[in-house]
Each structure stands twice: as C-alpha cells, then as structure tokens.
C-alpha cells in the first residue's frame, strides 16, 4: 500500500464552515477533481461550493440533467483516472441506486455524500432524518458491500470525507458519507491540518483489473488512456473483464470476492468511539447527529452518579459486530436512539446478548437530549 502526503488546500488552522461546505473541502483536500450533481435540498451547498472551488483548483464540475446522469458520469470520470464524487439527498439517492450496484460490481472507487432528509417519498425536504442507512446497505439489487460514514460534527464532515476517498481507492468500493440535514447545515469550527495523507490507487501494468487480488484483496486499478485495453462491464466478468454471463462459477467467484474483500478488512474499516463506558451498566449506541444528544444525556446522568455510557458509530457499514458483541457482554441494556424506525437497532440486536431497546423518532426533528435522558432513566 503506498501513500503520499500533500499540503492541504485550505490554509491550515481554524475555519468556520457548514457541514456541507466541509464535505466539499474535505473532498478537494483528498484530491477529488471531478464532481457531478443535480440540485436537491438539503445537499445543494456541496454542489455549489464544488462548482466554485473545482474551477479554482483545476478540476471539472458538471451539473447534469438528473441524479442518474450525475453518478454515471462520476463512474466514467473515475475510470478516466479521477478521484470523483457526487452528493444528493433522499429522492436523488433512490435514483442513484442502480449505478451504486454497477460501481460495486465493477469495483469503481467513488464517494457519494447523502445528506439525509425526512422520507419516504418527497417527505419533508428541509427536515432532518437518518433514514437511508438500510438503503445505503441494500439499495441496489444483488449482494455487495459498501462502506458508510456517519459524521456527528462539521469537523467529521471534513475528516471522514477525506477518509472516504482513501478507503474507496484502497478497497475499490463505493463509499458513502451519510450526513444528516442537521449536520449539513450546522456551522462550526473546523481544524484543517497542514497536510493530508492520501492513498495511492494501485496500478500494475498488465495485471488483470478484476482479479488476482493485491495485498488488500483488491486488484490493480488502471485507467482509460493508459494503453491497457481496459474492458469494463457491469455484467458478470472474469479477471480481465470478459463477460461471463452463463458461467455459474464466474458469478460465484466475483460476487464472493467483492463481498469478502470488505468483510475480511472489517477491522481496518470500522470506527467507533467510546464515552464513559468503563463502568457503565447501560449504554447508548448512537451515530450521526443523534450521538451529540446522546453524549449530552449521558453526561447529565453521570453528574448524578448514574452509570450510563455511549458507543458512537462513526462507520455504520460494515457493521461494528465485534464491538457491539463485546459491549453487550458488559451491559445490562443498550438503548439505540435514531432518526428512523429502528434501522440500526435491529443490527445491534443481532450482535448484542443483552436487552436492546430501540428508540426511533421520525418527526423531521433532531432527537433532543432530554428525550434520550428520559429513555435512559427508565433503563436503570
């Protein structure tokens, strides 16, 4: 695995940005030089900033006719050698799902920021939700794996977007930054480091681009125009890219590899953060903006000597099975507050041996700390 350390694009130090602006700046710092998108609330600020900034840094910005064209052109740009991304929200995310499956099967590294709003349907376009996690995991047909980040602050919108680009290239997989409206439109201080370390796409001339896995279980990634006679297809293919649409073995090998390369690397992908867990009896498992309210609630209870704690998921997929299993052994109960009707509580239930209490809220508003505090008190 080779990396390169480059200067950050923004001057290092403290900046005051919205979460959506921070996604754009994180992407640019990570070397993103192609963005394509379509306007949609509440993610449009990402596109607007990319339109300005890509011009400044010598990248390419394309406003497309819809979200389908946006994600497809990103995949085209990636195979032409770009680090590239798109951003959207609920309805646009739904439109992109077919191409997500294409990216997974062709092992196309790309980043999609989904700034979640209240659904289903058009729902409440300006209101917050966290209801797209199962769609991110299972939105396209067939079996595949993705990596998703769930930032809780503007700082993480920056940092985790950088990491999303690195992990996308490292594992040749689509990676999602699953922001929520509340963090997308939040303004906070962001510390921009002087330098950023970037993973270098593996390129071995002549190596089969869809097989003969490298050190990470990930094949070499050539680009168009390098004389490699690249054969890229979204149909089942062999290591060189030839269609194998009636060969059971070829399909099984390919589907197995694109799943296993992520499952085997779970330990290097999953990110969690523990707060007050050492002597806790009841833990909150939370992610995204809800984890901010959860930490506030846990601290309130701690002041009264109540042994509550928080495990924050910074990645949602692949799921932190091991961490939740360990947590479940140590706790009496786990509370899972989330801005959906229990999408991740179900995953926690699969891994934790203790009692798991879901607490879903789907009213287009953030879950306030006092509601989590009230739920927690009942569990002691």
């Amino acid at each position, binding site marked *: 695995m080779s990396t390169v350390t480059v200067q950050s694009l923004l001057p290092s130090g403290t900046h005051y940005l919205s979460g959506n602006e921070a996604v754009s700046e994180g992407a640019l710092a990570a070397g993103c030089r192609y963005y394509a998108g379509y306007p949609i609330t509440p993610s449009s600020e990402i596109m607007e900033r990319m339109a300005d900034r890509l011009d400044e840094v010598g990248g390419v910005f394309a406003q*497309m006719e819809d979200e389908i*064209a946006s994600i*497809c052109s990103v*995949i*085209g740009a990636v195979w032409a050698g770009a680090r590239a991304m798109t951003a959207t929200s609920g309805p646009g995310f739904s439109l992109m799902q077919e191409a997500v499956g294409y990216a997974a099967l062709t092992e196309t590294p790309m980043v999609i920021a989904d700034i979640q709003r209240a659904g289903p349907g058009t729902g409440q376009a300006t209101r917050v939700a966290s209801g797209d996690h199962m769609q991110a995991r299972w939105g396209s047909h067939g079996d595949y794996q993705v990596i998703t980040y769930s930032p809780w602050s503007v700082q993480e919108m920056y940092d985790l977007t950088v990491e999303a680009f690195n992990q996308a290239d490292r594992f040749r997989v689509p990676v999602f930054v699953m922001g929520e409206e509340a963090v997308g439109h939040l303004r906070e201080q962001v510390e921009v480091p002087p330098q950023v370390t970037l993973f270098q796409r593996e390129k071995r001339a002549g190596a089969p681009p869809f097989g003969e896995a490298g050190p990470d279980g990930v094949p070499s990634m050539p680009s*168009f125009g390098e004389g490699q*006679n690249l054969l890229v297809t979204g149909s089942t293919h062999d290591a060189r890219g030839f269609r194998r649409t009636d060969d059971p073995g070829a399909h099984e090998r390919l589907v197995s590899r694109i799943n296993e390369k992520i499952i085997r690397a779970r330990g290097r992908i999953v990110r969690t953060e523990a707060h007050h867990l050492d002597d806790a009896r009841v833990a909150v498992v939370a992610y995204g903006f809800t984890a901010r309210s959860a930490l506030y609630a846990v601290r309130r209870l701690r002041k009264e000597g109540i042994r509550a704690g928080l495990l924050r998921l910074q990645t949602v997929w692949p799921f932190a099975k091991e961490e939740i299993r360990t947590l479940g052994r140590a706790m009496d109960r786990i509370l899972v507050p989330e801005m959906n009707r229990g999408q991740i509580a179900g995953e926690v239930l699969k891994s934790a041996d203790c009692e798991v209490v879901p607490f879903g809220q789907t009213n287009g508003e953030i879950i306030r700390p006092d509601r989590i505090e009230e739920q927690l008190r009942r569990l002691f």
Partner: protein
Amino acid sequence: MARDLEAYLRAELKATPFCPGCGHGILMNLILRAVDGAGIPMEEMLFVSGIGCAAWIPSPHFRGDTLHTLHGRAIPFAAGAKLFNPALRTLVISGDGDLTSIGGNHLIHAARRDTDLTVICANNQIYGMTGGQAASTSPRGTFTATTNRGNPHRPFDLCRLVRAAGASSVARYAVTQPLALMEGIQRALAVEGFSFLEVLSPCPTQFGRRNRFDTPAEMLRSLMERCVTREEAEQMEAEELGDKIVTGEFV
C-alpha cells in the same frame, strides 16, 4: 487485405454474438474501417456502450478501452470520462431503445450542452435482445411482441430530435450504404462538439419475422429501396417520398 482489421479486434474472440442477417456486424466493420481510415490510434479511443445488442459492437470485441455501462446511461458515463480527460476520443455506440427511450433525456441534454462526444445509434426499430418489444422508433402499424395489433404510436425522428436539441453534427445512414456510412463516421469523429449518427440496421430475428420480411435479404433489399439521399429527396414529390427514409448530413 481481407484480414487487415484483425489488429483492431481482441485476439481471444473468434466470432460475434449477432444473429445471421443482423446489420450490426456491418456497422462494426465500418466503425473500425473509419477509425483506421482517420488514422486515430486505438490508444486514444474510448468506446462506451449501454445495454442491448448494439452495445456489444465494441464490448468486448474492440481492442481498446471499452466501457459497457447501464441500460440507457452510456452518454453520461462517456461524458464523465471525456470531461475529465479530454484527450480520450470518445465514441458511444448503442441501440435505439437504449439511447433514445430509457436514455432519451441524456441524449438531448448532451446535445444541448454540445459535449464533445460522437454517438452512433444503431436503429433496428425494436427491442431485439429482450425479444422484440415495441420501441420509441418502431414505425406506426408495425407488429412487435407488445403490439400484436400494430403499433398505434408514431416513432421519433431521431435526427430532427437531436438537431432541435442543438447538436453540432447530425446524420443518418443505413448499413446498406457502407461507403457513405463509413465516411459519415469519419466526419462525425472529426467534429468538435456533439455529433450524432443514426444508423439503420436490420433485425431479421425480431423485426423482420413479425413484419413479413421472410429473409434477411428482403430486409436489406427493402432498406436499399427506401433509403434516398437528401439530394434525391429534394427532387421528389411528397407522394413519391411516401415511406422513403432520407439519409445524409442534416447539420
């Protein structure tokens, strides 16, 4: 001489997947002859296709970079690659259902933006691969798997559509006009901006057998009789033009 284009084909392949009598083999041949005649090195070419029979013309046959994409989406995939790396001479080859029905919105917007792509639409007037259902290009009254009593709708005039959307170059030829078609492909490849080429290509398996063309030769003969050049059309009365197909350069 007869085998001088083999260098343009992947050595692993021994045959095309097309049905006997399909026009796509002729088109495949002429695309490679056009690239060869224009002197464009294959390393500079990028071939992008969607889903359907025509999408298999470049992928996997052409020995160059090929991108076989999703149904209807060849143009936005191609646009992303071209916009990021303008050195790629990007040629989209796909069918009528793919490019003008499910992908119709991408077609008109790429033409409007005048994205520097060449698009060859192999028009066989039917959904061939899926079993012969009616397309947005099936003539009124024709029989298909989904129009047993005759297609009630009129077809798109693709050249007028793409011209109205603002393309830099628009032309129509049939595979029965091989020299004019090859020269048309060369002209389209040389255009800076969006160039569109509609190529009429017979589908005896799905279209012909349902519409009283008993042999592939009859379909080819019919195309030869119906296709007239713009110059010829200008000399003809409206009645005489009837069901003729006007070919040539429109923009």
